[in-house]
């Protein structure tokens, strides 16, 4: 009992630490990445006493963004504007960060690990309706943004909040439809089971990843997911050229940092969902429980621990790749107009999602699922 509790606690803490530190890395990724895309130098100050330069390592500005930025933000003055709802103004950033963070509880980051006579499922919470949990927490996440804007007693913030909530509930629909098609394909809401269903290969070489079966759902999920995370080209809730900073105009210090962190954690969440549902989660091509079965008949036996570690590393690589894809999209596309945003959501993604669900239903009934 005590060991089980201990293992559960370790899993929860590990997931939180990895997600939050990946959020910090993404902050740096975005600074340097945007500089790379726009042909700038980007953040290049705050190296530790110039040590790197002295021994010939180029200064990538990592210390600057990953350490100096958070310290700067948390030591700034935390202001609440006059006439604001003090309680909700303080609550809102955490109300927006918490639901996104707890969503990672059901994301499987590895296969089972056998150690000391115990079988550990590498997933913080083994929930058989995991996808419903994901949709529920995403739905609750709207409140932080909406109330943050409203409680600020500022018209730009309120406009940003209204835009954010309208956008998020519109694109939740497309997100749900994308997820439903995946659920119909694999016949389960359990994320670990969906990842297991993506093991193996077709024709002896093609990994059975979900994106091969549900390419439309993948595009829907990425688009709707980026709209949920309110980033360019969907950043109308905070569009600085129109609304100062939108729903977090009146935030400073740690609370502003919480809103910013939410943005990055949402990016990681979208990447995690895309990886889990469409790119095999922790599945490594040709890697099975007992080792590598390469096409052509070559076989390399591996112990269980090595297979599990390969899985976790594969999941992390895919996760970071999708985070980078989102940063690339963010720094490549211009912002939508609001009517374009609504038209894309309601007249583009939702009918496409419905058609995809219908087509999936026909295929599943006519030919059965992939199993």
């Amino acid at each position, binding site marked *: 009992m005590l060991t089980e509790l201990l293992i559960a606690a370790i899993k929860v803490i590990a997931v939180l630490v990895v997600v939050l530190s990946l959020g910090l890395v993404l902050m740096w990724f975005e600074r340097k990445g945007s500089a790379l895309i726009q042909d700038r130098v980007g953040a290049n100050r705050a190296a530790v006493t110039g040590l790197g330069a002295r021994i010939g390592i180029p200064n990538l500005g990592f210390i600057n963004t990953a350490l100096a930025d958070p310290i700067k933000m948390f030591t700034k003055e935390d202001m609440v504007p006059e006439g604001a*709802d003090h309680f*909700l103004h303080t609550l809102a950033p955490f109300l927006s960060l918490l639901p996104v963070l707890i969503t990672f509880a059901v994301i499987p980051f590895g296969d089972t690990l056998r150690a000391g006579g115990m079988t550990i499922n590498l997933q913080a919470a083994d929930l*058989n*309706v995991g996808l*419903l*949990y994901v*949709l*529920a927490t*995403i*739905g*609750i996440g*709207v*409140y932080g943004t*909406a*109330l943050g804007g*409203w409680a600020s007693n500022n018209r730009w913030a*309120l406009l940003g909040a*209204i835009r954010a*909530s*309208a956008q998020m*509930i519109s694109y*939740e629909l497309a997100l749900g439809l994308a997820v439903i098609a995946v659920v119909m394909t694999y016949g389960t*809401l359990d994320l670990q089971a969906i990842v297991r269903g993506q093991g193996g290969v077709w024709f002896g070489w093609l990994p059975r990843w979900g994106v091969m079966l549900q390419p439309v759902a993948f595009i829907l999920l990425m688009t709707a997911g980026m709209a949920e995370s309110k980033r360019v080209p969907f950043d109308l809730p905070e569009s600085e050229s129109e609304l100062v900073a939108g729903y977090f105009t009146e935030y400073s210090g740690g609370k502003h940092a919480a809103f910013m962190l939410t943005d990055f954690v949402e990016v990681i969440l979208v990447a995690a969902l895309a990886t889990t549902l469409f790119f095999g989660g922790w599945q490594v091509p040709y890697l099975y429980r007992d080792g590598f079965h390469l096409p052509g008949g070559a076989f390399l036996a591996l112990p269980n621990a090595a297979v599990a570690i390969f899985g976790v590393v594969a999941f992390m690589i895919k996760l970071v790749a999708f985070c980078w894809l989102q940063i690339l999209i963010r720094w490549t596309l211009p912002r939508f107009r609001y009517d374009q945003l609504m038209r894309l959501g309601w007249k583009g993604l939702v009918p496409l999602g419905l058609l995809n669900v219908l087509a999936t239903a026909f295929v599943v009934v006519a030919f059965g699922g992939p199993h």
Partner: protein
Amino acid sequence: MPLWLFGFLAALSIVSALGVILQANPVHSLLALVMTLLAVAVLFIGLGAVTLGFIQAIVYAGAIMILFLFVIWLLNLQAEAGMAGGRLAGKFFGAIAAAALMGELFAILSRAPSGANLEAPAGYGSIHNLAMLLFADYLVAFEVTSFLLLAAVVGSVALARRPAGSAAPPRAAGSR
């Protein structure tokens, strides 16, 4: 579900339900209602109705309450000046309705089977059982309900829609 957890969630839902009616600010009331709905959702999950609990969280706490928030914002509802608002007749009929609901609740509870160790039937609350109920046992009722809801949606869009070619609504005086 351990008794202390049930007690905590039940107390939380009652306190937040009181918060809905006792607070003057409509946005605070709405937040308290979200809290009530979430506490009830967790109660559902703890009592074995897992799917229903999550659907409650998605549909009620996640979607419908956001629409309520929109209505509050669009109508620009302000905090009530005092708690003595409302007419006497409203209070009278409200009290009668509340008493009727309470009576109904006690009538149902008195008929409920007693005993501490009631067993839930196998598969109770699973998504499979819920789907069998909705799409097999009560298919006609389910489809009729969805058709009625569709008619309501189409009707409200038709009512709200401006005829083609008509000008935008006149702006309110004082606004630009």
